[in-house]
């Protein structure tokens, strides 16, 4: 069970997308897990064959627990196991449960999978008894069926509340903004899109994201995480793209390696991502590892926003709408499309100068969109 966010402790397995014996390619979604942020698809980091499923549908599983075993291409098949173990909960690899603990847990209806093992890595009577003592007197909530799956807006609002409150509590924000004139970009886009069918057209967000991803190479202090009291720089650029949801709330899953995608590939990723966000189905890695977030208000909205950093990231970029503005050109006033971009930075990690350099570089790159 991967951590699908900094605050996640457990998730409920709601669906297996692969069956034992099925072939898995790296990046294939293998299972669907429900978290506070909705139903997330978990992808495999490894190619191979799904050898064994260790967690049944409906079970809540702590982060770090093994969900399934994947046999590598060059590994020999394990001897066949007895298929059905109807009474006892399945054994958890690595974590051993004493017979007495297992029996007590069964009698008390305690899910051993959700218990934290003792210092020796095993679950004994002490752990089950502690769980029994800590249990509220209400009946345990039953796992939701896959049909009820989807985004739980109440839980999502709680997750946003927790993350944003933590951000405001812990992160000393600074804000630096610039208004960028975008006539060159828009002219280029119009030219490119004119030759394309509607489905293949690029949104302005695509070159914007690419320019930001490339600009980050000059200001690595904006790209990474603040963990255990220090900044950990990210090598790759995974931009979390904030997507508003129809029912309210928002989510910012990552597009991976934006700096290395060409614009068409980036457009395809963006389309796919928005579609899946609205369908309530994301992949774990998309939620877990953005290295910076971009919040784009979009057309006909507002001119500027001062965004709040999503911890443990250290920067967020807020883009206002593109609107015609009075603009000084060669000493005379003209009307030009422009966008106000604001960077919020974590002052523990960087200073306003970093954000200013970033904005200047984005502006430069957008003057030559064909080179993106």
């Amino acid at each position, binding site marked *: 069970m991967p951590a699908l966010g900094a605050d996640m402790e457990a998730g409920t397995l709601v669906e297996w997308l692969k069956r034992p014996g099925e072939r898995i390619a790296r990046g294939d979604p293998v299972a669907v897990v429900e978290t506070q942020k909705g139903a997330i698809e978990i992808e495999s980091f490894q190619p191979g064959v799904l050898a064994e499923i260790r967690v049944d549908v409906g079970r809540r599983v702590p982060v770090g627990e093994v969900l399934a075993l994947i046999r590598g291409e060059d590994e020999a098949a394990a001897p066949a196991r007895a298929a059905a173990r109807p009474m006892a909960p399945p054994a958890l690899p690595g974590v051993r449960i*004493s*017979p*007495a*603990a297992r*029996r007590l847990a069964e009698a008390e209806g305690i899910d051993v999978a959700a218990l934290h093992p*003792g*210092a*020796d890595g*095993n679950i*004994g*009577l*002490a752990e089950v008894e502690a769980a029994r003592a800590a249990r509220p007197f209400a009946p345990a909530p039953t796992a939701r069926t896959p049909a009820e799956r989807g985004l739980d807006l109440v839980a999502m609002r709680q997750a946003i509340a927790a993350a944003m409150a933590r951000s405001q509590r812990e992160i000393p924000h600074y804000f630096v903004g610039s208004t960028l004139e975008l006539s060159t970009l828009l002219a280029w886009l119009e030219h490119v899109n004119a030759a394309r069918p509607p489905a293949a057209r690029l949104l302005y967000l695509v070159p914007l994201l690419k320019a930001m991803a490339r600009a980050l190479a000059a200001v690595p202090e904006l790209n990474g995480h603040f963990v255990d009291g220090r900044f950990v720089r990210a090598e790759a650029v995974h931009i979390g793209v904030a997507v508003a949801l129809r029912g309210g709330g928002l989510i910012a899953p990552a597009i991976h390696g934006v700096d290395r995608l060409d614009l068409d590939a980036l457009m395809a990723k963006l389309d796919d991502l928005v579609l899946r966000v609205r369908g309530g189905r994301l992949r774990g890695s998309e939620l877990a590892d953005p290295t910076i977030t971009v919040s784009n208000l979009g057309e006909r909205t507002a001119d500027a926003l001062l965004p709040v950093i999503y911890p443990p990231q250290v920067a967020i970029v807020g883009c206002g709408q593109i609107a015609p503005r009075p603009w000084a050109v060669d000493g005379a006033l003209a009307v030009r499309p422009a966008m106000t971009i604001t960077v919020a930075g974590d002052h523990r990690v960087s200073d306003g100068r970093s954000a200013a350099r970033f904005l200047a570089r984005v502006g430069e790159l957008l003057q030559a969109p064909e080179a993106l």
Partner: protein
Amino acid sequence: MSATRRITYREAVREALREALLRDPRVFLMGEDVGRYGGAYACSSGLLAEFGEERIRDTPLSESAFVGAGIGAAIGGMRPIVEVMTINFSLLALDQIVNNAATLRHMSGGQIAVPVVIRMATGAGRQLAAQHSHSLECWYAHVPGIRAVAPATIADARGMLWTALQEPNPVVIFEHATLYSDEGEVPAGGEFAVDIDRAAIRRAGADLSLITYGGSLKKALAAAETLAGERIDCEVIDLRTLRPLDEETLLASVRRTHRALIVDEGWRSGSLAGEIAARIAEQAFFDLDAPVRRVCSAEVPIPYPRHLEEAATPQVDTIVAAARGLMRR
């Protein structure tokens, strides 16, 4: 409870022998040096003077012959007590004990009883080297037709002999050689006889069942005392009877504590500790909160030098360490 008095294990054995000789004219004692020398461990000193050569008989150094003679006397209606100097030497009499004493009642369809009592010293701890220091109790406990008992306390040393003499089948009594000078309480008077069927809980506890017998009991009790200071509450069980095992007491204890540590001076492979562990696994598996553990002797002939002898046999600190491990500390 009535008044008690304090005597040594050796005195308890001597009193028990004397009582048996006084109460039953069919009882006699024989073995190497039991008469003029008073016994290798001085358990029979003074008895030759009191009871004479007919009933206190020194024998040649031939375990097979004098144990066989004892078995014959038992078949003939006597109640012999045969002393073998150490369990190592008793191997010379194993043929008589296993092939004759243990079988004749069964082979005769119950017509022949063999009410012999065979006493022997066992165990390490006195720097007597490998040929005098082994713990082979489980070899006897393996054999149907024999009752094997191990008095670990002064009261049991005093009380088990008479009960053993009432048994129609052969009884082997194992006296750990480190116990003879230990002191303990026995009843001031009256009836001394104790059962030879049941294990005894020597210390009640809730966290862990420390199962042992014979010379290891005092080490287990000392370990329990140390562990109590670490808030590990040990129940200490003295097996007392090694065959037949009192499963009921053992399993009830393990079902309460959920953890079992067996301390056995025998070698681990093929040990009584292994038998007990197997029975716990067979019958109390679902009550266990931790794997059964054993503290046994190292698989070497018991060494002569003191530090090596100690290193080879269960000690208080090794028991304490194993108990901590069981408690996941």
